[in-house]
């Protein structure tokens, strides 16, 4: 359960103050797919950063599994992200110089998981995204679709309870994008909450819940 209570976020100082988020509140039950929809500059990315613990709102509460993550120290926030969150980005952000194996290994290394367990988990994750045959290939040499699948493998290898996907199909053609969508929605079967930030109405429509953000406020919500 993700509970967002009255969060606000401002950027800048004095005359140049810009209100990115205004009193936003909502609750997301576990295992749902959520689309946060909005135009660029609407505040949807800021909202995602806040929920994932990357950014700190000025006020409010973000309660995940009963804990307000805004009250955690930096070290605990890092730990929270490493253990409970998976990220997928529009630009993939894979490590081009590393092999697929070592790309997927990174979140496990951060969590200090032993070598043996790492290996079996990485193989399983790469299997899920159908990249088992590319295990030793350098990530930089792969196609966009493969890169995004690799990013998904990296996001799921930790078995997180929430996966954030920021425009996951934005840089892909429709066929490849379709496959990625299929993969993403398949993740829900493991009880994982999927939060997709997008301005793609079609993709948003496939989610259980849609939250539309406009000028830092919730403009409309569906499925809640």
């Amino acid at each position: 359960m993700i509970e967002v209570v009255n969060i606000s976020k401002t950027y800048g100082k004095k005359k140049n103050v810009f209100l990115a988020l205004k009193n936003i509140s909502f609750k997301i039950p576990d295992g749902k797919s959520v689309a946060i929809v909005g135009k660029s500059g609407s505040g949807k990315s800021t909202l995602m950063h806040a929920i994932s613990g990357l950014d700190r709102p000025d006020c409010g509460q973000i309660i995940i599994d009963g804990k307000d993550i805004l009250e955690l120290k930096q070290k605990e926030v890092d730990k929270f992200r490493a253990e409970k969150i998976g990220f997928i980005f529009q630009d993939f952000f894979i490590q081009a110089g590393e092999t697929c194996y070592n790309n997927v290994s990174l979140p496990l290394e951060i969590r200090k998981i032993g070598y043996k367990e790492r290996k079996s988990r990485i193989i399983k994750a790469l299997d899920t995204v159908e990249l088992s045959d590319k295990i030793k290939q350098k990530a930089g040499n792969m196609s966009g679709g493969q890169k995004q699948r690799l990013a998904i493998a990296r996001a799921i290898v930790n078995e997180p309870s929430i996966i954030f996907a920021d425009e996951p199909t934005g840089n892909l053609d429709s066929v490849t994008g379709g496959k990625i969508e299929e993969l993403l929605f398949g993740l829900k079967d493991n009880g994982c909450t999927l939060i997709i930030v997008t301005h793609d109405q079609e993709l948003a429509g496939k989610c259980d819940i849609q939250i539309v953000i406009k000028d830092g406020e919730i403009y409309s919500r569906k499925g809640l």
Partner: protein
Amino acid sequence: MRTLDIIKRAGRSLSESKTRTILTSMAIAVGAFTLTLTIAAGAGANNYVEKLINSNFDPAEVYVARDDKVISSDYSSATKPQEYSANSTTMYGANVYRLDESDLTKIKNTDGVESITPYYSITPLYVTRDGYKKYTGYVRIYKSSQKPTVSAGTISNGLNDDEVSLPDDYIKLLGFKNPSDAIGKTINIAFERTVSLSSSDIQKALASGTTTALESLKPYEIKTYSLKIKDVSKQESTSLMSVIPMYVSQNFAESVNDYITKGTNDYQKYYMVYAKVKNGNNVTARNEVMSRLKKEGFKVATAEDTEKTIMQFINVLQGIVGVFGVLAIIASVFGIINTQYISVLERTKEIGLMKALGMRGRDVSKLFQYEAAWIGLLGGGLGVALAMIVGTLLNPPIASMLGLDKGVYMLIFEPMPIVILLVSLVVVAILAGYLPSKKAAKLDPIKALRTE
């Protein structure tokens, strides 16, 4: 994150930009190269000096003198005229006080002194053999600590008072076929002394009334000693003397010295005495004897002091070269800082991702510091390896240029200093990587990951 995992990632990320890594580490390599050769030359010089000292001096001996100037061989203290003293002699304008017989007795009786050998300044007038020309020569007392390279005969069991150790340069000059031919044969060594004419001699010459008789009155006389050749030996490359000495026994040297100095101001006066210490190879035993002698008012030194004096000179030279190595390393520090800053800028997104995935700022910082460490290790290893190759290749020509004995090299690569050097280079590199790594650690993941 586990340190090993971070180190591995740091290494892989460096191998992604090989050219840049190698170029950055080259600067360190230059410093490491210079320092390795400096250290090797220092070790070689140390080894050489030690050999030098051991083949020329007995470490168990203490030099005892009345005057500091004798010990330090520094007579420059006489910057202005000194008052004449009847019981001193003058060298380079300075009064030099010497030891007398009662001093010798005192030294000999000092607790811990095994035996004493006074320093005799005996220079032969000439060396010859019946039927051959006269040649110059240089005579020294043979001590068991001296180990000349023997080409015939033996010297290890010492010399009798009528025996001599002949340098092989005299073999041809004195008409021997080869070194072994000379063994057991006799050579003549002549010494000269001034004498005061006796009144009876003068009266006799005056009485004869001829000028020839008066002219034949000479204030000096020559005495020739016949010595049997015990062995023929060669000079070692580590010998401090440019002239190869003929070794004689102590008794022989003493009798010659007495003969030369009798009736002069130098009779039974000694610049220096070598006092052999019981268990003198033991520093404590030697120091105890030295402090006892000092209490008696003697000036003392050991071969170790001589070694130190020589090493001081070498160390200064070594230091000068070392400074250049250190300067190269300081320059390389800026190279590393620069490279690592660029690396942080280039990998902003990657750093952002790692932080988003929950990697601690401390670990991100470590990642970049270990990269710097790898650069340090690589550069250090490169420099050390190069220095060892060059040193190994240069050793034989240097040795032959200096005329060193077989197997004696000027550049000695010892493992311990090299390991210490490599470790310090890695530490220096890590310190150089500090600022860039802090920048990486402080990077805001949101800004880093923003897609523009």
